[in-house]
Structure formats: structure tokens, C-alpha cells
């Protein structure tokens, strides 16, 4: 009978690069920047790390993508790719490994270098298949959720075009307070609303997050050894990962107002972490706001809002920095930006900063529980990851 590993692993140091168009940096530069911030944070030497979990979606291949750049000395490096959940999944696997007792100190790293490709957005998948499926851009995939949500809950077009820009506005505002964010400008709501359509009828360019370069990492050990490194580690309460069976894609019962993978991951993660009322027990949440409509629907899948009510909660400011449940306090994918393989760890990094009072102008008042959620693939067939983190044991 599985007992879970709640509170059995702890983070003792984290690093995260500035995200953005890092034309000044190669992959090695990004790795050194994040890894060395984490090592200094934890106060340990690089060679004290026993094993590495390295995630990137399509920046490079295999463990050598890490080892040849950081010169790790013949230690295990596992490369993981799991769409946008890559960063969460390296963290998850690193935690499991250290929990077994096989290793004492491990590192989870996520890296993505997208701006060297010459594409303003998106990335190709070098997979051989018959290519008869329609080539949907990512905004189009998630844009399909908007008419369904509006239709099911009777939200008018004009109301939707109030709600979605409001989410973008919030995340840009939060990002303006984050020195590592790609976009550091507060953007007036009117300007957001006037942005050109990219996945009509609901999503404009300002409803999309930006792809970027970036790297983030975490150093993890077992809770009982964490005290050797620092008095204030961050405890891992629960980790969940779901990969969908394409039921939503192939079965008519799916109505495009939910992302089942996320909802299932949330239910299971809350159970593991002992969370019964996410709205009040969670201090901050970093969620996968690849598009504003995604964030809207996630509020309901993560049980932050009742079904059909999230759009009202957005307008009431529930998820603002000063709201009841602040979401994407670091600017989220929207403003901090989205280096795919690094994003999961970037989300965890925000809890790390908030728990240590290091979040600067966006610092919350004594947060205790942080949630990081990301999803990858398509709303109807994808992966979702949830990591719940605590400032305290228990």
C-alpha cells in the first residue's frame, strides 16, 4: 500500500535565470546562471550533488546536454521531456529518488532555449506521422475552450472580453513587480483589449503568454537531512502527474469547458497534501496561464471557483495580488514568460521566494502553502502536473 511522501523531501536551494529573449546567453550560460544561484542559496558545492534530473522539451537531448556543460563528473543525469510539465516532472522524479535513500542530495533542472530558433512563437515536433490532423497553433487549441465556456455558462461575448483581458492585466501587473520577468511593464487594460485577434473570436495576442529562454533549478534532500543545510527549507507536500487518454478528444461527452487532466491531478494532489478547502488553505498558486482562457478554466479545475463562476471571481479580484487567493504572483507564463522545460521549476521558485520573504514588491503576508500547476499538450489530450509546497511541516 503506497503511503506517499508528504513532507519527506525538502528543497534547500533554488535558482532561476531572468527569463526573456536571452540573445546574450547560450544554453551553458543559462544553466550556469540558475545552477550557481541554487548552489549559493543552499550553501553547497556542485560536486556534493549526487544525481541530476534534467528537463528540456526541445532544446537538446539526453543527460549529456547537462553534463557536458556543467561538467558533472560521471554522475547520473536523467533527461525528461513531458511537454510543458517537464520542469514539474524533473522535480517530481528527483524528489522520489532522494526519498528512496539512494541519494542524499539531488538537483532538478529545467532549461529551454527557444529564441535561437528564429521563430517568434511555437516550435516544431520532429515526429514522423501522416500529418492529417489539422495544424492548430497553440492559441487555436486553447481558443477552442472559449466559445464552449461562454456558451455553457451564458457569458456574453462582451463579458468574456472583459474577463480574459482582466487576467492578462493582473499577470502583467504582477510581472511588473518581478525583476526576473520577461515583461516588466504594467499594461493598461484598454491597451490589452485593443490587441489584434490571433485565435478568434476570443483570443488576441495579449491573451497569449510569451515563449522565452530560461532555466530554473532546485536542490532537494530528505527532510531529516535538510536541517544540515538550512533552518528554513521548503517541504514537498504532494506531487501529481496525469497523462490523458485522449478521451476528451475522441468522446462526445467532453464539452471543452474543463481540462480533465488538471482536474484529476488537483483532486489527487489535494488528498495527498490533506487540503480540503483549496480556496482558503492555499496561500498562493502559480498556474499554467499559457492563454488567459486557460487560466480562467483552471480556476474551476483547481477548485478555486465553482463551475461556471470563475469569470465572476476574476472580475471581483479574487486572484489579484491582494485578493483572497493570489494567482501567478510572479507574472505567470504571461509576464514572467514560458521557457517550456523551465516553467514548472519557475513556478516552484515563486513559493520558495515567498516563503523566505524574498519576493520584493510582490511579497505576500506570511504565505504557508504554495501550489504550482502546469499542463502541456492539448486541452483534450495532454499532461498536467501539480506540486504542493509548504513552509512548515504538517
Amino acid at each position: 500500500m503506497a503511503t506517499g511522501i508528504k513532507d519527506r523531501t525538502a528543497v534547500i536551494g533554488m535558482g532561476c535565470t531572468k527569463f526573456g529573449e536571452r540573445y546574450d546567453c547560450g544554453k551553458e550560460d543559462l544553466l550556469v546562471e540558475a545552477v550557481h544561484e541554487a548552489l549559493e542559496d543552499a550553501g553547497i558545492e556542485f560536486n556534493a550533488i549526487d544525481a541530476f534530473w534534467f528537463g528540456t522539451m526541445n532544446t537538446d537531448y539526453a543527460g549529456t546536454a547537462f553534463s557536458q556543460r556543467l561538467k558533472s563528473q560521471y554522475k547520473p543525469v536523467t533527461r525528461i521531456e513531458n511537454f510543458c510539465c517537464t520542469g514539474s516532472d524533473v522535480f517530481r522524479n528527483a524528489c522520489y529518488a532522494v526519498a528512496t535513500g539512494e541519494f542524499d542530495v539531488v538537483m532538478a533542472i529545467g532549461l529551454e532555449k527557444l529564441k535561437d530558433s528564429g521563430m517568434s512563437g511555437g516550435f516544431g515536433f520532429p515526429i514522423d506521422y501522416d500529418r492529417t490532423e489539422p495544424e492548430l497553433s497553440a492559441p487555436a487549441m486553447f481558443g477552442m475552450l472559449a466559445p464552449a465556456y461562454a456558451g455553457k455558462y451564458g457569458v456574453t461575448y462582451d463579458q468574456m472580453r472583459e474577463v480574459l483581458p482582466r487576467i492578462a492585466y493582473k499577470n502583467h501587473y504582477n510581472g511588473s513587480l518581478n525583476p526576473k520577468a520577461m515583461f516588466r511593464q504594467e499594461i493598461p487594460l484598454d491597451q490589452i483589449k485593443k490587441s489584434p485577434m490571433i485565435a478568434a473570436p476570443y483570443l488576441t495576442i495579449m491573451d497569449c503568454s510569451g515563449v522565452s529562454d530560461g532555466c530554473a533549478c532546485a536542490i532537494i534532500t530528505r527532510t531529516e537531512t535538510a536541517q544540515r543545510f538550512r533552518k528554513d527549507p521548503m517541504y514537498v507536500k504532494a506531487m501529481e502527474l496525469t497523462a490523458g487518454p485522449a478521451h476528451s478528444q475522441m468522446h462526445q461527452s467532453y464539452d471543452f469547458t474543463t481540462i480533465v487532466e488538471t482536474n484529476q491531478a488537483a483532486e489527487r494532489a489535494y488528498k495527498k497534501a490533506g487540503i480540503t478547502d483549496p480556496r482558503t488553505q492555499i496561500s498562493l498558486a502559480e498556474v499554467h496561464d499559457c492563454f488567459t482562457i486557460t487560466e480562467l478554466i483552471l480556476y474551476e479545475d483547481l477548485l478555486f471557483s465553482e463551475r461556471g463562476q470563475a469569470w465572476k471571481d476574476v472580475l471581483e479580484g479574487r486572484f489579484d495580488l491582494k485578493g483572497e487567493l493570489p494567482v501567478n504572483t510572479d507574472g505567470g507564463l504571461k509576464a514572467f514568460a514560458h521557457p517550456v522545460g523551465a516553467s514548472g521549476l519557475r513556478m516552484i521558485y515563486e513559493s520558495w521566494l515567498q516563503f523566505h520573504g524574498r519576493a520584493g514588491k510582490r511579497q505576500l503576508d506570511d504565505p504557508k502553502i504554495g501550489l504550482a500547476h502546469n499542463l502541456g499538450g492539448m486541452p483534450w489530450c495532454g499532461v498536467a502536473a501539480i506540486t504542493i509546497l509548504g513552509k512548515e511541516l504538517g
Partner: protein
Amino acid sequence: MAGITAFGGYVPYNRLDRKQIGQAFGKPVSTGEKAVANYDEDSLTMSVAAALECCRGIDPKTVRGVYFATTTSPYKEKQCATNIAAALDLERNVRAADFTDSLRAGSAAMLAALDAARNGVTTLVAVGDSRLGAADGAYEADFGDGAAAFIFGSTGVIAELLDSYSVAVDFHDQWRAENDTFVRNWEDRFSVTQAYEPFVTEAVRGVLQKTGLKPGDFFKLVHYGATPRNQAALAAKLGFGPEQASDCLSKTVGNAGAASVPLMFVAALEDARPGDKILLVTYGEGSDALVFEVTEAISQLPPRRGVRSYLEHKRVAINYEKYLRWRELITFEPAKRPDQPRSSLPDYYRNYKKNYALYGCQCKACGTAQFPPTRVCVQCQAVDQMEPYRFYGKRGKVVTFVFDYLALSADPPNVDVVVDFEGGGRMFCNLVDCDLQSIKVGMDIEMTYRHLFTADGIHTYFWKATPQW
């Protein structure tokens, strides 16, 4: 008795008002509209559309041969009749052949199919064309796109072949050499006086003599005309009245090349009654003349879309620049998107039934219809309990949609829809030949066979949705 047992037509939804061409070059052009194949249509897809109309109510297994006729085959080397056969879900053991390179390719295929029908081989002929004239030339304005299809058999004949007469002369009227994109021609008076009029006259006189019929015996003369003026003049010279000569569709479709006379023939069959005789005459390096007599069986043919309904089903909104783009006659700035790789041919071939005839599967354990076909049921997880299940012909409704301005497209935005089919099953696909304002959740759609893209010389064809009409 051998003859036609079924027919179908196809005219693409998009029409270019010839005024647009006149405006582009600042000089007068002929009036009316030309039918323009969408960016994802070609002579093959239009032929499939006509063939599917032709096959309404017919068990595909009864069709034992497929001939494709065109002057604009998507491939210089590789048969396309096999592609049509697969899209129609015919059996593998059919005869297949392409008839190409001549305006007379359609009638050549029809004559061959009639020979096959007399030998008991029920054969479908699909004729489609999408020819290009160089910019600012008469052909650019005159040419239009379209397709027609006929089944030839010896039972259930709706129009019996009474006789035929063929003339074959090597003559340069219109031609394209190996690397030519646009149709070339000699000075037209030479062609009209030395080829068109004498060849057609010779064929018509020949078949009239063989059958003992006179012009007055015919309901319609369906004869090729490079221009309506030439066509009308020749009809009069041959002794046919203006009411007998078929509209060559120059104002509504344009000159559809090898498909021109076949389309006119479909229009004539739509209007014909039992006992009517129709004289079909093609032209190009000679002439084929075929005499048909319509039978009582025509009244039992299930309703279908012929030429008349397609002439009304149209959008005349495209401009000349869009036409140039669709025919890839101007170079566009490439999207800053990853290159689209070619289809994996092994994967495309493994998915043969899915890709050509739009098959999914249905689980024998739980009854769920699903697309794409899979071995493990998405609903009950039963393994290898699947039966083939064809989605083509099932009613579909739009569940949700999006207009994608980012995806690579020759007609942005790409319209992506999720379609739920009556009886179960869901599919993600593009929606084409639609007006953006009219798209809504719950709208009815039908499926249409289209050209998705070309990479490394491989044309990838698959199905898209279009509003039900």
C-alpha cells in the same frame, strides 16, 4: 445495353468575378465569373467530390473500375485513379487508369469505360480540371475549375450509348510542354478554322451517319466551345437550333478544360426526360462524338447535386490577389513558423482506410464510434474489439471552433472545428468554403476530401468539414 447509370457534378464554392482581373490590369476582360478551386482543391479532389455525388445510394463494391481524366494531374508520375478509388472506398481488385494530357481525356475515358461496361465491368469516370492561363491573358479569365463523374454499366442504365464516332488528328491548338505552367496556343483563327470546326463537324457527321439520326432528333447538343461565340456558331453550322445547344458555362464556371463538356453533360442529364437524345461532342487533337438516349430509369435516380445546385452554391468574394495566392502564382513571405515536414508515407499508408475513405472504428464491446481508429477503446479500454466504421456520410455538428490566424494557411485564418457525428465519434478538422460570420456552435457540416499540403513532391490529401447545404 451499356450506358450511364449515375452522374454527379462539382463546381468549387469560390468564384472570381472577372471584373477583378480587369481592375488588376486596367483593361476590359470577358464578363461573368470563373469558378476557382480553393487553395486545398485540385483536379483530383474536385473529381472525388463529383464521384461521391455520382455514387449516392450506390454500394461502392459494385464499382469495378475507376478512370480519372484531366490535363492537370497533381502528379507527372503516379496514378491518381487509385487515390479516387480509395476515397470512394472501392475494393482493391478494381481496374484503375488515368487519362491525361488532352482536352479529350474525359471522352477518351468515357469511351474506354463504355467498352468495359459492355464487358460487364461497371466503371466510374471522374473528370476534373484546374488549368492555368498566364496573367493578363485571355485564358486566365476564361478558364474555370470543375469536375464531373459518371458510372458506366450495363444494368440500371439511365442514358444508353447508341453509338460513337472518333476523330484523332495530331494538332497544336493548346499545349503545355514538360516545364510549362501555363497553357500555350497558336493564333486562334488557325485553331478554329483548321481544327475545332472541321474536327467536331467530322465527328458529328460521322455519328449521325452511323445512327441515322438528324440534328432535329436531339434534346441537347453538348459540344465543346473555347468561347461561347465559337460554340454557338458551330452549332448553327451543324444544323442545331440555339435551344438545343448547351450552355458552355462560360459566364458561371469558365472553360473547365477536359471537364468542360462532362459538366455540360451533367447539366443536360439533370434536365433530360426519358426518350431524350443527347449528342456529346468533345474536342482536342480530334473529336469524340457520343450519342446517348435517356431511359425511364433516370426517374429512379436518387437526388444528387448536379451542376444547377452548384451554380447557386457559391461565394463571389475572393479578389484577384487571393486567386494568385491560391494558385501559388506569387511568392509570399514565409511564416515565422517551423517548416512543415512531409507526411510519413509508411504512417500514411498504414492509415489507408482512415485517410482515404474516412474510416474510424466502433467498439464491439461498448458500441462507441471513435476517430481516429484505435486498437484500445477510448471508452471501455477493450483491446482489439474494433470494427471498421466509416464516418463519411454521417451527419456532423460543430461542437466548438476557432479562427487560427497563426497557423500557416493560404487563406487565413484557418478555421478549426470539432465535429461530433451522429451515432458517435468526434473529429478535429479544418472547416472550409464557409463565411466566418456564419460559423457557430451547433451548425451542421459535411465532409469534403481536400489537399492538405505538398512537401517533397508528396501531396497529402485528407478530409475537412464544410457547411452542410
